């Protein structure tokens, strides 16, 4: 038996939503403007009207829309997060993606009919944690943290009936999701509260003539010789010095790519595959979604995986199987 995996695709903008649906997305995920979702970058995300239109477009074309409300509500200020859940429910979103315990409880109590997914930001990496969210808040699907190997994912799926969704392509944080304060240590803005890691407002490039320095806040994250293209200073993919040796201590500038493992993931009992990249443009979304669509369909038919070359759209042109493979750890 070959179960067809659901393909969940990023929509940072209404235009990206449409091209993702056109390219074969079974579902798109998106967020409202502001701090209530984990990709709170300038020029991204949806207004209420845009979500309304996006929902109509997706539903007309047989696609679903998941709304991420996956940051952690600030103490004393729950309203923006609650309103985001209320609005998603009122407009008819197919699911909300939540990370905070208090907000999950709010959604379960106030919108029991609205499907609830657990965000990767909640970092539920065990059957015990997943069953806890399922039991307490009726979570139907969990997006798994990128710390698990395929064997560990298969073991999890044997222990619970909660659907699992895994990231297969795109930028990949090295640290456990939702539990990293490196960016707030340097910029004062917490990804968990503000939805921004290494925010552009704190990024500087310093031209020293013979080299280009990328900085986040006061700290040098990387130095590039004159002829090298300077990357964005995401902290966990910077170059640092330990024991007198400079290296990409945490992770190289590279992208997650495990699309060749789609049949294995299907066998491991995964329900959905997720593509990262709400910050990416239409061309990227269109190309990546279409390519992975072909892979998923071939796998569902039991056919060999068609060759797919996405090197030109990946960070630094380099790809990694990430935590799915034991060798990464």
């Amino acid at each position, binding site marked *: 038996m070959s179960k067809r995996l659901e393909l969940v695709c990023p929509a940072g903008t209404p235009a990206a939503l449409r091209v993702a649906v056109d390219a074969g997305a079974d579902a798109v995920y998106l967020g409202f403007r502001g701090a209530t979702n984990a990709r709170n970058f300038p020029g991204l995300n949806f207004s209420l009207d845009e979500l309304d239109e996006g929902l109509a477009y997706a539903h007309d074309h047989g696609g679903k829309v998941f709304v991420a409300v996956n940051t952690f509500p600030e103490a004393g200020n729950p309203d923006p997060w609650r309103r985001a859940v209320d609005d998603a429910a009122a407009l008819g979103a197919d699911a909300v993606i939540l990370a905070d315990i208090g907000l999950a409880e709010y959604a379960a109590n106030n919108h029991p009919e609205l499907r609830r997914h657990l965000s990767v930001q909640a970092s539920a990496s065990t059957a015990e944690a997943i069953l806890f969210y399922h039991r307490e808040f009726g979570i139907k699907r969990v997006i798994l943290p990128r710390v698990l190997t395929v064997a560990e994912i298969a073991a999890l799926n044997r222990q619970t009936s909660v659907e699992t969704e895994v990231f297969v392509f795109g930028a990949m944080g090295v640290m456990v999701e939702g*539990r990293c304060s490196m960016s707030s240590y340097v910029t004062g803005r917490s990804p968990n509260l503000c939805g921004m890691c290494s925010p552009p407002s704190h990024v500087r490039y310093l031209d020293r003539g013979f080299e280009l320095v990328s900085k986040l806040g006061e700290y040098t994250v990387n130095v590039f010789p004159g002829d090298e293209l300077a990357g964005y200073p995401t902290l966990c993919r910077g170059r640092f010095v330990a024991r007198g040796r400079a290296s990409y201590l945490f992770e190289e500038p590279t992208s997650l790519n495990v699309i060749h493992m789609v049949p294995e993931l299907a066998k491991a009992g995964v329900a959905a595959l997720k593509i990262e990249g709400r910050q990416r443009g239409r061309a990227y979304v269109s190309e990546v979604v279409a390519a992975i669509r072909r892979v998923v369909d071939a796998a569902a038919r039991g056919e060999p995986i068609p060759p797919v070359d996405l090197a030109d759209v990946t960070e630094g042109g380099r790809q990694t199987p990430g935590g799915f493979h034991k060798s990464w750890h």
Partner: protein
Amino acid sequence: MAPMTAKLTLGPLLFHWSAEKQRDFHFRMADEAPVDTVCLGEVVCAKRAPFFEPYLPEVIERLEAAGKEVVLSTLALVANERDMERVRALSCEPNFFVEANDVAAVALLSGRAHAIGPFVNVYNEETLRFLARHGATRVCPPLELPAKSISILARTDAVEMEVQVFGRLALAMSARCFHARSRNLHRDSCQFVCEEDPDGMPVETLDGDPFLAVSGPQILSYTFGNLVRELEALRGMGVRRFRLSPHDIDMVSVAQIFRDVLDGRKDPEAAFQTLGDLVRGVPFSNGFYYGAEGVRLCAPSGQTAAGPALGDIH
């Protein structure tokens, strides 16, 4: 109103010390340090745990004989069945107060009294109340929480609030071991190189600025968090428990200094200076408390900046 007695907790050791060194350290803390509570248990890397385990009973006995409460802290990242077994074993200890550092442990401890450590995301009062209803009686929230949030959480009176006031700030965890990676080793064959850095491996930027410290799969700040000058303000918010994170320095003196400030026997500013000598020149930080960059050292003030509310209208 009489001030509530403030208590000191020695947090779990976040670094890999030899089993004998850990034993002797905790014996000394039992005999000499004015702390009320000591957290034991491996939080950072499950591979380290077996070394100290044989000494655990005698260390617990010594601490309890000295009148100290013992808390067993669970792993911050539970990624496989081997890790889960460890959490299960601790959570099933009926005679111990257990600190959950992952939702898996929260699930297992639900329904009985337990503590919540800083690796569980407790950012707001709704989450805090939920956890309290399920048995949490003491919560040490994420280290990046500003005073404004701490004060709102403390005001709920749902649990006993604990705030880390001394030690490097644990900033992130990974499935990958950076200590091993720095030596081109794999986590499975790491040779426990993390033991060479009893306060973490210093990490500098390419421009030579001290930045972070690495303990296996955990990233910490290079600076030592220090809220000795903010203790009074924290007490004013209703925080009654203060956590000292253990380091390879004279922790008995560190604990004594915090005890003296809490008891009004020592001036906070003088205490701040003395602590500076004890950490041998490593800079202090308190920025998270003031809602600023965590690395920053802000001038102490009774007031905290109100700061703009998050979650702009969408």
